[in-house]
C-alpha cells in the first residue's frame, strides 16, 4: 500500500538525537568532504594561475560566452530540479516532466564541456601541455565527472518515479538527497567558472 | 679512513655560532621535557604504589571524583605558560640563526644531485664536488638547490639542515667557530643511494681558505709523465668525458657528474663512500656499482690495467 512519504516511527520523549533525516545528514557530510577535494583542486589552479607563459594568458583561450551559455543550462537545471521536487511533494505528474528537463539540461552542459575540450585539444591545448592544461583539465574534468554521476543519480530517481505508486516509490528524502548533490555540483561550477573563466575580467 | 678523525658527529657538538644558539635552546627545552616526564612517571609510580587494590578489599567503590576546577585550571595554565615561553624563544633563535638574506649574494651554493653534492663558490668562479671548505670566523651565506629530486643538506655539528628543492632555492647561514673536519649527510630520502650521499666539510683559517680556493680556481698542471698521459687519453676515450668536467682538459666539459678537476685533493671518493687512494680509485672507476649500487655512473667494464691507468691520471689532478 502507498505509504505517506513522510511517515516516521514515533519518537521517544527523551530522545536527544539530531532531528535531521540520517540520509540527508549523510549526503551533507559527503558534500562537505567533496568540497575539500574541489577546494584543493581550485587552490592548485590558483597557485599556478599567475605563471609566466601559462595560466593567466592561457585562460584567454577559453570562450567565456559559449561556456557561459552552457553554464546557464546547468544553473537552470537546478531550478527545474527544485520544481520537480515541489511537484513530487504534491504527488503531481509534472514531477517526471521536470526531472526529464533537468536531465536534459545537465546533458546539454556536459555536451558543451565535451565540445569545449575537443576545441582546446584541436588547438593543442592538452592536459599535458603546461600548467594551465594540467590544472584546467583536472579541475573541470573532475567537475564534469561529478556532473555525470549526478545525471546517473537523477536517471535512477526518475526511473523509480516512473514505476508508479503501487511499486517502490522514491521518497521525499531520497529525492532530496539527489537534489542536494545536484545543487552542490552546481555551486562548485559557480566557483570553478568564476575562478577559471571570469577571473581575467577582474585583473 | 682519512675522515676517521672527523669531529664528533653530534648536534650537541657546537662548532658554529648558529648551533650554539640552537643547542642552548635545545638544552632548555630538553630540561623542561625531562622534568615533565619525571612528574608523569613519578605520579604513575606513586599511583601504582599507593592505590593497588589490597587482597582483603571489601569490594566497595572508592570515592568518585568528577573533577576539580582548580586543578584543571592549573594543569592547563602551566603548560600554556611553558609553550608561550618556548614560542618566544623559538622566534628569537629563528631570527638569530636564519636572518633574512636581503640582497646579499651567497658565498657558497650547494646543489644536491642524485647521489652527490656540487659546491659552487660564485665569488671565485669555482665549482667542485663532494667536499667543501669554509673560512673560520666568517658568517657564510649558503644557498641550497637541487638538480633533480628533493635532498636535504645537513652537516650535523653545524646544527641545522636545509632542504634542496628543485625550483625553490633555500638559504642558511654558517658561521664556524672551530676549525676541523665535519661530516654530514643527505637528509631527505632521494632514492637508491640516499644513505651514502655524504657531506665532507672542512673549516680552515681564512688564510688557508684563500690558499685552497685559489688552488681550486687554478687549472691543474698535468704532468708529462707517460702513465699520466696514457690515463688521460683513456679518460677521454672511455666515455668518462660524457659526464665529467676537468678544467684544463678541453675534451672534458660535461656537467652531469661531479667535477673532477681537483679530485686528488679530496679525502673521499663517491661522496664519502671510499677513502681516496689510488687502489680505491681504480676499483671505483672500474665498477662503482660495487660500492654504491644504483648510482648513475655505470659499471664501466674496464680492464684492471685501464682502470689503474685512469686512476693514475685522476690522482695527478691536484
Amino acid at each position, binding site marked *: 500500500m502507498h505509504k505517506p512519504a513522510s511517515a516516521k516511527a514515533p519518537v521517544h520523549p*527523551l*530522545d*536527544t538525537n539530531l532531528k*535531521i533525516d*540520517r540520509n540527508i*545528514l549523510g549526503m551533507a*557530510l*559527503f558534500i562537505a*568532504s567533496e568540497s575539500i*577535494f574541489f577546494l584543493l583542486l581550485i587552490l*592548485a589552479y590558483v597557485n599556478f594561475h599567475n605563471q609566466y*607563459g601559462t595560466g593567466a594568458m592561457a585562460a584567454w583561450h577559453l570562450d567565456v560566452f559559449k561556456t557561459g551559455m552552457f553554464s546557464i543550462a546547468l544553473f537552470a537545471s537546478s531550478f527545474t530540479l527544485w520544481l520537480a521536487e515541489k511537484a513530487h511533494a504534491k504527488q503531481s505528474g509534472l514531477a517526471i516532466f521536470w526531472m526529464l528537463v533537468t536531465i536534459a539540461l545537465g546533458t546539454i552542459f556536459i555536451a558543451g564541456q565535451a565540445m569545449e575540450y575537443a576545441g582546446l585539444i584541436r588547438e593543442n591545448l592538452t*592536459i599535458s601541455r603546461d600548467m594551465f592544461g*594540467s590544472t584546467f583539465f583536472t579541475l573541470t574534468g573532475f567537475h564534469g565527472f561529478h556532473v555525470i554521476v549526478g545525471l546517473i543519480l537523477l536517471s535512477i530517481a526518475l526511473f523509480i518515479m516512473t514505476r508508479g505508486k503501487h511499486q517502490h516509490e522514491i521518497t521525499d528524502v531520497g529525492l532530496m538527497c539527489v537534489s542536494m548533490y545536484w545543487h552542490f555540483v552546481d555551486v562548485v561550477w559557480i566557483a570553478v567558472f568564476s575562478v577559471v573563466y571570469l577571473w581575467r575580467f577582474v585583473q | 679512513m682519512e*675522515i676517521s678523525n672527523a669531529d664528533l*658527529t*653530534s*648536534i650537541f657538538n657546537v662548532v658554529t655560532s648558529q*648551533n650554539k644558539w640552537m643547542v642552548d635552546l*635545545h638544552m632548555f*627545552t630538553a630540561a623542561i621535557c625531562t622534568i*615533565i*616526564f619525571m612528574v*608523569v612517571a613519578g605520579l604513575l609510580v606513586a599511583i601504582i604504589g599507593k592505590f593497588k587494590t589490597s587482597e582483603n578489599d571489601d569490594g566497595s567503590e572508592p570515592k*568518585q*571524583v*568528577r*573533577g*576539580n576546577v582548580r586543578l584543571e585550571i592549573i*594543569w592547563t595554565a602551566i*603548560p*600554556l605558560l611553558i*609553550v608561550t615561553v*618556548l*614560542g618566544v624563544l623559538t622566534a628569537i*633563535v*629563528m631570527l638569530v*640563526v*636564519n636572518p633574512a638574506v636581503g640582497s646579499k649574494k651567497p658565498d657558497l651554493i650547494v646543489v644536491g644531485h*642524485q647521489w652527490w653534492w656540487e659546491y659552487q663558490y660564485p665569488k671565485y668562479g669555482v665549482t667542485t664536488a663532494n667536499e667543501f671548505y669554509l673560512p673560520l670566523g666568517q658568517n657564510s651565506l649558503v644557498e641550497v638547490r637541487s638538480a*633533480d*629530486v*628533493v635532498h636535504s643538506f*645537513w652537516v650535523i655539528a653545524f646544527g*641545522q*639542515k*636545509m*632542504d634542496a*628543492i*628543485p*625550483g*625553490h*632555492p633555500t*638559504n642558511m647561514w654558517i658561521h664556524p667557530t672551530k676549525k676541523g673536519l665535519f661530516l654530514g*649527510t*643527505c637528509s631527505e*630520502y632521494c*632514492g637508491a643511494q640516499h644513505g*651514502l650521499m*655524504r657531506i665532507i666539510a672542512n673549516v680552515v683559517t681564512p688564510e688557508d681558505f684563500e690558499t685552497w680556493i685559489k688552488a681550486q680556481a687554478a687549472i691543474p698542471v698535468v704532468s708529462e709523465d707517460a702513465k699520466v698521459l696514457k690515463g688521460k687519453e683513456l679518460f677521454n676515450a672511455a666515455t668518462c668525458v660524457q659526464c665529467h668536467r676537468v678544467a684544463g682538459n678541453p675534451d672534458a666539459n660535461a656537467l652531469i657528474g661531479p667535477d673532477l678537476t681537483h679530485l686528488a685533493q679530496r679525502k673521499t671518493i663517491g661522496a664519502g663512500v671510499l677513502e681516496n687512494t689510488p687502489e680505491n680509485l681504480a676499483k671505483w672507476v672500474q665498477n662503482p656499482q660495487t660500492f654504491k649500487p644504483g648510482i648513475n655512473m655505470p659499471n664501466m667494464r674496464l680492464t684492471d690495467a685501464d682502470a689503474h691507468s685512469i686512476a693514475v691520471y685522476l690522482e695527478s689532478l691536484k
Partner: protein
Amino acid sequence: MTQGALHEPHKPVNWVADVPEYKGILSWLTSVDHKQLGILYVMSALGFLVVGALLGLTIRLQLMFPMGHVVSQDSYNQIFTMHGTTMVFFVGMPLLFGFAVYLTPLMIGARDMAFPRLNAFGYWVYIFGAIMLYFSFLAGGGPAAGWFAYPPLSEKGYLFNSGQNYWALSLFVTGIGSVATGINLIVTILTMRAPGMTLKRVPLFVWMILMDAFLVVFSLPALNAALVMILFDRILNTKFFIATMGGSPLLWQHFFWFFGHPEVYILILPGWGAVSEVIPVFSRKVIFGAGVMAASTVAITFLSFGVWVHHMFTTGLGFAPLYIFAVTSLLIAVPTGIKVWTWLATMWGGKLRFTVAMLHAMAFIIQFTIGGLSGVGFAVIPIDWQLTDSYFVVAHFHYVLVGGMLFSLISGIYYWYPKVTGRMMSETLGLWQFWSFVIGFNGTFFVMHILGILGMPRRVWTYPLGMPGWAELNFFSSCCAFILVGSIFLFIYNLVWSFYHGKIAGANPWDAWTLEWLADSPPIAENFERVPVIRSRRPLWDLKYGSGGDGEDHHA
C-alpha cells in the same frame, strides 16, 4: 536474521563461534552486520600488522651492521615504503574502524550503524585497495618513494615502474572507503543514540570516534586530491609537481601534510578513547574531568588542521609562514597534555586492578608522554632544524604510533575481547606478551633518539663504518626488534588460544559501566532486547546504585 516483533526467542549463546547468524563463510562475505564487519576489520588489520612487522624486521636486519647487504638498496626502499604505507593505511585505519563500527552502536544502544551496507562497502574497499597495492610486486615492483612519496622522486622520471601508480591508486580507493565509514559513524552517533543519551552522556570512546570521524571526512579528500595529481603527472603527463615545467614539489608537501597531520590524530584518537574507558574501570572511578577531556578533543580536532607545515620546517618558507605553525604546534600540546593529567587523576584515589588491559594502558601513558614530549621539541623550530629527517623523528613517531596507538588499542582488545567472543583472554599469556612488548618496543626505539642526535638520517638502506655509536646502537635496536616482533606473535597466539580455551566471560566480566556491557557476550543480533533510559555517562553504574553515574560523590 530476525526482524521486527515476530522473532522467536533465541537460545543464549556464550561463544561467538556458536552465534547462528555467523555460521558459514557466506555470512561473513555478505554481512552488513556491524559486529561481523568490526571483527573482519580487526582481524584484517592484525594480519597486515604481521606483514608490516616482518617488513620492519627486515629493515632492522639490514641495519643491524654497517654496510650491511641483507637486501639490495632497491628492495630496501620498497620495503620501508611498504612498511609505512601498510602500517598507516592497512593496519592503523582498519584497526580503529573495526573498534569504531563494532563498539559505537553497542555503546549508544543502537541496533546497527546508520548505513549498514555502506559499512560493508568501507571494509571491502579497504581489502581491495590493500590487495591492489601488494599486487604491484607481481606487476613490476612495488612503490619505493616512502609512505609520503615526495615528488620529484615519485614522478615517472625517477621511479618508472608502475609501483607508484599502484600506490596512488590503492590509497585513493582505500580513502574513499574511509570517508564512507567516517560519514557512517557521524550519522550513527548523531541520530541513533538511546533515549536520554545526550551528547554529553556518550562514553568518551564514542566522543573520540565522533571527532575522529570528522577528521576523516575532512582530511582524506585532501589526500585524494594530491593522489589524483601525482597519478595524472605519471599517467597523463600533467606537470603539477615538475619544477622544470613550472610545477611545484612543495605543493605536494602542502597537500599531503594537510591530510597527513590530521591523519596522525585520526590514528591516535580511538586509542585515547579506549584508554579512557579502560582506566576508569580498572581504577573503579569515574573519569576525571570528562567535560574537559571532551572539550580538549574538540580543540585538538580543530587545531590539527592548522599545524601541517611543521612537517616542512626545513623547506625555507620564510620566518612568518613557519612561525605561525610553530605556534599552533606548540598550542596543540596543551590539550594533549591535559589528557595525560586526566588519566593520572582518574587513577589517583582509586582501587587499581592490574589486568593486562590496564598494564597496556599504563605503559601507554608513559610511552605516549615520551612521544608527545619529543613532538613538542619538534615544534621548537630550531630543534626541528637539527633533528628532522633523522632517526630522532623515527623514534618520535614510533613512540606515539606504537607506544601510543598500538598499546592503547591492544589494551582495548584485552578489555573488549570478552564482549566480542564471549571468552576471556589468558592473563598469563597476556603478561608474557605485555612485558616482551614493553621491552622489545622500548629497546628497539628508545636508542633511535640517540642515533638521531648522533646524526643518523632516516630512510637509509645502510650506513658507513666509523660513525660514533651507530653500529652499536643499531645492533642493539635490531636485537630488540626480534623481541618486539615476537611479542606481536605472542599476542596473536593469545587471541587464538583464548578463542578456544578462554574462560566463558558473561555479560560484564569487568563490572564495567557503559552500555555495551549490558548486552550479552557476544551480543545478540539486535544487540539489546531492551535499552534503559540513560541518565549519565555510566548507565550500568546507575542501574546498580540508582544514581551517581557521572561521579556525584558516592560511597557504596
